[in-house]
Every structure is written in structure tokens, then in C-alpha cells.
């Protein structure tokens, strides 16, 4: 990676980055705004009750200490995926500084002054708005600033629950092992954080009454000047608020339109497929497609589908059966498909498409060096030589009952070392000789790039992983025109085609959407 390639990648994606940047601003502002709406009244309320204050601030402290990814994972089953859990998560983080600073700001006012305020006959509300809030304003604004800068950071995590924003690029880059993409998400996010800090610190200075500054810093202004400044501050706030409120309103207006939501898991193939479905639908119908891409794994996507947060996503029979439906592991391709389709239809109201054509099975692959040294050709060879081999595989492979645990119990396989590695990092590890064997996928682009030796499954160990599309039946009922349209992809993508598309994205660095469009165009589907 050089600066040059980063720059090229930036130019390629600048439109997308700008859009994600705006979405990021949008999410952050919305979250901070909600935190203000909750945090300020809460902060004010607890000034009247010390034990309550200790409890509330303590709780906010605890929330703050939960890792954001864990909090997100915890929230998704309750409130689904997309912007909602993302905003809620950011709000939970943004609350603490706002509550704390409101509380501190109010309680640090000299009680004598409050007595004076009461004494001159101010009502409770007048006291709050004319004395307490203006005096607490510097604290409050500092809290907002901490919250907002933090929110910009936390929103990047939101990509893992399907919300967009700059985290989307980071997550894409991590999945695709593309440091350029990570940087294209991370750099604008950092710039945004600095920008937010700058804007809010200016606003903070602006709304802090001159009289609260140290005497040598006070600028005396006439009434007209003060009014003008107040106007500018109000305008600035209005602009800051217009973005999220406006987009929320636009979203609400849009709700009358025909729309469906396509979801995907967080790996290249799923995302390419997502774009294929999205483009296919948008080009052939008047239905608007919303993206909920990059969801953190199949179970999350499935729960989103069941909740109606998304209307469809692609998966594999070998995952849908054992993982989503809890079926025993089978190796009979047809039986697995039939069981999945039947249970999905009967028990979950989900329509399963005919297989899309390609399979994305586990193919245990060895580095050419290891294959040569130990004569690895089949899974049986692997079992025999495992004690000499270092196995670098996804953590999912080490955890799933039908993967490594089953290998160990069934064949007594025992590797010299097992390293849990995510995504494409496995290929780097095997390429650089740090591990000898990995759990590759049949359509994986990197197997082509790093020239791994696939080991034939002569033991019939792995279940079939036929690609299928899962769609909510009620969505198909609402938009019956989708049924024949979606059917055109059934059996329409070969394993080679899929591997090729993955390669274009992961290795050649093409935009997944462009790859999807090119595929559909080539097939005459759009």
C-alpha cells in the first residue's frame, strides 16, 4: 500500500465517501441530539436528589465502560438492526458526559446566588432559564462536545449493525483485508471528529456568557452585538439540527413509497450478492431498495429478517440448516436444501429460493510448501499429518460443532497449533508461512491469489453450502412482481462466476456494486 494507491482509491470512491460522511454526520447529530433531550432533563432532575444522582451517574458510568461492539451485539436482538440500534448505542455512550456535566454545572452554582434569584422573585422556570442554565452553559457545552466527538467515533462501530456511515468503509476494508478502505473510512472519521470539536468549541465560546470568563478575557458588547451573536449561534444550531431532522422527515415522507430492504452479511461475496439483488430489483421494478449490508453474520441477518428489518438476504444451506434452524448436520445436499426450505416456509414465513447455482463450501487448503512436504492431497492426508501442521482458521471454524470440534471428535485430529484468524488475514498468514493450513471457501478470491492447494473432502465431512436467497413471504406477497424476477437468479451463478466476482473485488479492488452491475449486464438481466 502506498499513498498513491490510497489516493487512487479515494478518487474512485469519493462520491461514496462523501455520502457516507454525510450519513455519519447525520447519525452522530441525531444521537447527540437525543442524548441532549434525555440527558439535560435527567441531569437537571437529579440535582434535586443526591442518592438518585449517584445512581444515575453510576449507571451511565457502567454503560460507558461496556465495549461498544458488545453493547451493539446486546441491543440488536431487542431492537433489530440498522440505524435504530446504532443511534441507541451512541446515545447510551453520549449520555454520560451530558448528564454529568449538566449535573455538575447546576450544582456548582453558588447556593447564595440561587437564594438571591428566589429572593428577587424569579419563578422556578425563570430561575432555571435565566440563571441556572446560562450559568451551567459552559459545563453543558463541554459535555456536548465530549459526547459529540465520542459519538463520531462510536458511530463507526454502527456499521456492524447495518447502519451506514464511515464505519461501513472500515468494516468493508477489514473484511476484504484492504487497508486503503480502512483508511478511507478512518481518516474522514478523524477529520470529522476534529471538525466537530472545532465547531462545538467555537459554539461553546459563543454561548458562554462573557461575565463567566476571567475578567481579562471579557469582551464588552453592545446589546445589538449580543443579539447578532445570539442570532448566529441560533442559525448554527438550526443548521446542525436541520441535517438529521430533515433527513428523518424525508425518510418519513418516503415511507409511502414501495420499498424493500436487502440485507447482507459482512463478507465480500454476500455484499456482491446484495448489490446483485438490489440492482436487479431497482432496474426492473419501481420498488426502492434500501441497503442493510454488512451485518455481523448469519444469525444477526436472520433475526433482522424475522423482525422485518430486512426483507431478504442470501445464505447457504449448510449454515441455514444447523445454525439458523438448529438442524443436525447432514451431508446429503438435497435433503439439507429440502429441510431448510420446508422449515423456513412453515415455521418462519420465509421463502427459500432454489439454489443460486454456486456453493461456498469449506475447502481445507494447504500452502504449496506444506502440501509438498507432507504430501497433502485429501482430508485423510490432513488427518494423518495434523500433528506437524499449524492450522490458521476463522474463529467460527473453531467454535462450530460441525467444524473443528467434529473433526477432533470424529477423526481425533490434533493440530500442532490452532490460530483463530479472521477473514483475509488467514491468507496473509498462510502466504507468509506463519500457518500451513487454513479453512478456505470454494468461491474465495484469495485462494486464487495466494495459490493454495485445496484438499479433497474424501471423508464426506463438510455439509453442503449451496447459496440460497431467503426472503420474507409477506414481502413477496406484497410485491408479487418480485417472485418471477428473483427466480431469474436461481441457478444463475456458477461457482466460477462467483469466485471471479470475489476476486475482482478483493484482489483487483473493484467496487462491489460495479462488479454486480457488470455481472447482471453480462447475463442480460438488466
Amino acid at each position, binding site marked *: 500500500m502506498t499513498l498513491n494507491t490510497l489516493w487512487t482509491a479515494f478518487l474512485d470512491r469519493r462520491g461514496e465517501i462523501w455520502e457516507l460522511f454525510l450519513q455519519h454526520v447525520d447519525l452522530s447529530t441525531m444521537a447527540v441530539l437525543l442524548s441532549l433531550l434525555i440527558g439535560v432533563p435527567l441531569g437537571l432532575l437529579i440535582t434535586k436528589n443526591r442518592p438518585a444522582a449517584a445512581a444515575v451517574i453510576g449507571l451511565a458510568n457502567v454503560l460507558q465502560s461496556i465495549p461498544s461492539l458488545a453493547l451493539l451485539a446486546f441491543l440488536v436482538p431487542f431492537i433489530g438492526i440498522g440505524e435504530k440500534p446504532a443511534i441507541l448505542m451512541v446515545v447510551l455512550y453520549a449520555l454520560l458526559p451530558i448528564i454529568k456535566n449538566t449535573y455538575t454545572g447546576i450544582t456548582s452554582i453558588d447556593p447564595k446566588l440561587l437564594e*438571591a434569584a428566589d*429572593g428577587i422573585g*424569579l419563578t422556578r422556570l425563570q430561575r432555571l432559564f435565566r440563571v441556572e442554565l446560562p*450559568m451551567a452553559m459552559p459545563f453543558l457545552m463541554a459535555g456536548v462536545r465530549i459526547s459529540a466527538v465520542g459519538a463520531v467515533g462510536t458511530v463507526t462501530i454502527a456499521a456492524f449493525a447495518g447502519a451506514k456511515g464511515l464505519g461501513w468503509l472500515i468494516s468493508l476494508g477489514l473484511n476484504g483485508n484492504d487497508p486503503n478502505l480502512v483508511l478511507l473510512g478512518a481518516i474522514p472519521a478523524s477529520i470529522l471528529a476534529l471538525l466537530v470539536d472545532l465547531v462545538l468549541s467555537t459554539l461553546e465560546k459563543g454561548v458562554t*456568557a462573557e*461575565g463567566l470568563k476571567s475578567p481579562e478575557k471579557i469582551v464588552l458588547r453592545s446589546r445589538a452585538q449580543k443579539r447578532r451573536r445570539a442570532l448566529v449561534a441560533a442559525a448554527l444550531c438550526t443548521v446542525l439540527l436541520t441535517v438529521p431532522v430533515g433527513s428523518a422527515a424525508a425518510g418519513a415522507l418516503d415511507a409511502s413509497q414501495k420499498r424493500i430492504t436487502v440485507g447482507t452479511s459482512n463478507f465480500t461475496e454476500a455484499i456482491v450478492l446484495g448489490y446483485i439483488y438490489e440492482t436487479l430489483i431497482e432496474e426492473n421494478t419501481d420498488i426502492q431498495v434500501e441497503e442493510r449490508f454488512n451485518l455481523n453474520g448469519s444469525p444477526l441477518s436472520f433475526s433482522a429478517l424475522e423482525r422485518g428489518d430486512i426483507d431478504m438476504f442470501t445464505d447457504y444451506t449448510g449454515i441455514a440448516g444447523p445454525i439458523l434452524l438448529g438442524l443436525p448436520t447432514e451431508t446429503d445436499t438435497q435433503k439439507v436444501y429440502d429441510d431448510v426450505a420446508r422449515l423456513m416456509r412453515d415455521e418462519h414465513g420465509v421463502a427459500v429460493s432454489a439454489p443460486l447455482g454456486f456453493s461456498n463450501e469449506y475447502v481445507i487448503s494447504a500452502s504449496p510448501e506444506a502440501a509438498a512436504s507432507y504430501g497433502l492431497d485429501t482430508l485423510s492426508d490432513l488427518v494423518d499429518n495434523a500433528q506437524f501442521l499449524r492450522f490458521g482458521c476463522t474463529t467460527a471454524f473453531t467454535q462450530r460443532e460441525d467444524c473443528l470440534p467434529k473433526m477432533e471428535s470424529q477423526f481425533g485430529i490434533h493440530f500442532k497449533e490452532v490460530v483463530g484468524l479472521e477473514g483475509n488475514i488467514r491468507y496473509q498468514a498462510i502466504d507468509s508461512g506463519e500457518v500451513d493450513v487454513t479453512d478456505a471457501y470454494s468461491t474465495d478470491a484469495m485462494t486464487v491469489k495466494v495459490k493454495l492447494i485445496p484438499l479433497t473432502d474424501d471423508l464426506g465431512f463438510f455439509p453442503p453450502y449451496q447459496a440460497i436467497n431467503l426472503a420474507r413471504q409477506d414481502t413477496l406477497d406484497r410485491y408479487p412482481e418480485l417472485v418471477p424476477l428473483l427466480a431469474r437468479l436461481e441457478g444463475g451463478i456458477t461457482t466460477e462466476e462467483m469466485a471471479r466476482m470475489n476476486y475482482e473485488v478483493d484482489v483487483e479492488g473493484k467496487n462491489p456494486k460495479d462488479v454486480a452491475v457488470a455481472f447482471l449486464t453480462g447475463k442480460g438481466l438488466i
Partner: protein
Amino acid sequence: MIEFQNVAKSYKSKTVLKGVSLTVQTGELVALIGASGCGKTTLLKTVNRLGPADSGEILLDGRPVSQLPLAALRRGIGYVVQDGGLFPHLTVEENLELVLKNAKVPAAGRTARAAELLQMVELQPDEYRMLYPCQLSGGQRQRVGVARAFAADPALILMDEPFSALDPLTRAELQDTLAALQRHTGKTILFVTHDMDEAVKLAQRICFLENGRVVQYDTPENVLRSPADGYVADFVGKNRLWGNPEFIKARDIMKKNPSRISRGRSVLQALQVMNHSGVDSVLVTRAGQLEGVVWLADLQKFKDYRAPLDNFISQDYVSVYEDTSLQKIIDTIDYNISGVIPVLSHKGELLGYLTKSILLATLSKQYETPETQSERSGVI
């Protein structure tokens, strides 16, 4: 007029006010004074209900404060606390306007009224109205605090140790300003202080509180002159009266039984009287009434001792009435005056006399401590 009727209040288990009854006349400045914890501030706050009374009632011009709407009650009462209680985020002008706005003074009139208020407390409006409290000295802040209390033109003003945080010089200046303001506006003012000098200087009446009870409520003069009990006496201090010459009357310090002689006597007899008493003058009386003074200096030049005194009776003297204050005597007598100052009743009867040395001795008493008094008897 404020009437406290059997006002009681306690905090938790501690009874702070034990049935206080007190009447403050309209236009009067009453100082509430006592040791800390005596309940003086607590009593003050029962009026504007910052700390409402548990029992008893406070009537403002006949209306019980407990029946008045809180905000309206407070808007009708000026309130000054220590250090002014100005809002730091507002300018001097905005601090005043906050009260004016609340008192429904139309926006157009507020600026002018604020300027007027600043002038009232001897601050130049153009110089101070734009400043923030942190840019003012303590005395200036308190002046604005006082101005704010007067802003809505309330009938009653409560002051809670307003000047106690100021240095003595500034305090004296502010006391002068307040005294002038009160004379000028005729506001009823209830003033909490722990400073006896301040109370004597400002108040028309002083109310002594001890452990939540009124122990003495009287004019400063009477409080100084006759403290109700040891507590008040201790508070007043032995020498306090002597520091306040306006409360000391001629009769308090005059020497009785002046050397006197009647008109018909001779020069020799007059000289004998003077010689006997060791004085340089003798007062001529008839039936108790003063007729004049015979000065030793006039007689010494004259050698005919048997001559009648008639020709030597001088009208060149200063006399004072028995209730003339020491202050006034000092202010009016000539510094060059020497000799006797007769003290008369309003009917012209001779009661006693003063001399310059008696005046000096009296004035020096305020600086005396018991130690200096005992030293006097030693060999210096």
C-alpha cells in the same frame, strides 16, 4: 408596616425562632442583631418566605405573607445579600433589568430606570452599566446589589448582612449611601447585621435577638444607654456609648454643684469662692436662674475688693441645655473657648457645668480599656 406575630421556626430538632413578635413601622430601618445562631437571618427569611415560619404570622401592611402568592410577595420585597448576589453572567444593567422586567416595567423605560438606579447608589451609569460583576470591586458590586433591591420600588427591603464582607472604609461609604437612600426614599428596611456600630449608625430601632427570642427592641440610644441584660450589654460593649457622641447629653457628663454666687456679693467674696474651688470663674445666680459669669481675669486687675460684683458680671459665655448632645457641643463651641460652660434646664435653671477638660476626658473614654484605666493609678 411589618408585624411579626409569635413567629416560630425550627430546623430538624433545633428551634431557631421561639415566638418572635415585633412591629416595624413604615419607613423605619430596623436592625436585627445578635450573636451568630441567634435567629436573625432566619427571622428575616420568614418575611419573603425563603424560609417560611412554622407557626405564627407575618403581616405586611395587614396582609399575612403566607396568603400571598410567592412570586408576587417576593417581587414586592427588595432583597440584598452579602456580596450583592449579582448574577455573574449578566451585566450590571441586565441584573437590574431582570428585576425591572419581572416588575412589568415596559422595555422602553428599563434602560432609563437602570441608569437612575445606578446614580442613586453613586455609580456613573455610562461607566458601569456594561460591566460584568467580576469586573467590579466588592463595594461596587454591593452598590449594584442595593440598587437592584430598590429597582422595582418595593415598599420593603430586606438586607442580610449586606456589608459584612467589605473592608471598613468601603463599608462606611456604603452605610452612608444607604442611610442617605433611606432618608430620601422612606423605605421600610429590615437589616440583619452582627456589627453594633453599623446598627447604631443606620437603624432607627435595634432588635436584639438571643436564642430565637427578642431580648430588647429599642432605639440605638436606649440600647446603648440601658442594655436590657448582660447579653445585650456584652454585645454593646462598655465603651460603645462614648463612641457615639450624639447619644451623650450634657447632663450625662456635667459636673454638678458649680461654684455660684449671688449678684449682691462683693469682689472679695467672689475671689474667695474661686480660690476655694480652684476655678477661674464663678456663676452668678438668682433663685437658681443663671444671670451671668464672673471671670477671675476681670477681677484680678481690680484692687477694690469691697466693690460690688455687679459691674463684673459678664454675658460673654456659652451655655448649653441639659439635653444638648456632646456631638453638638463639640460641633458648635469655639476651640479657643476656655473656662466654664454652664448647663441649664430649658427653664434657665443652672444644673451644672462643663469644661473643656471634661469634654476631652469624655471623648477619650471610647478608647479606654479596663487595662488603661488601671494603669492610670500607677506611677507613670
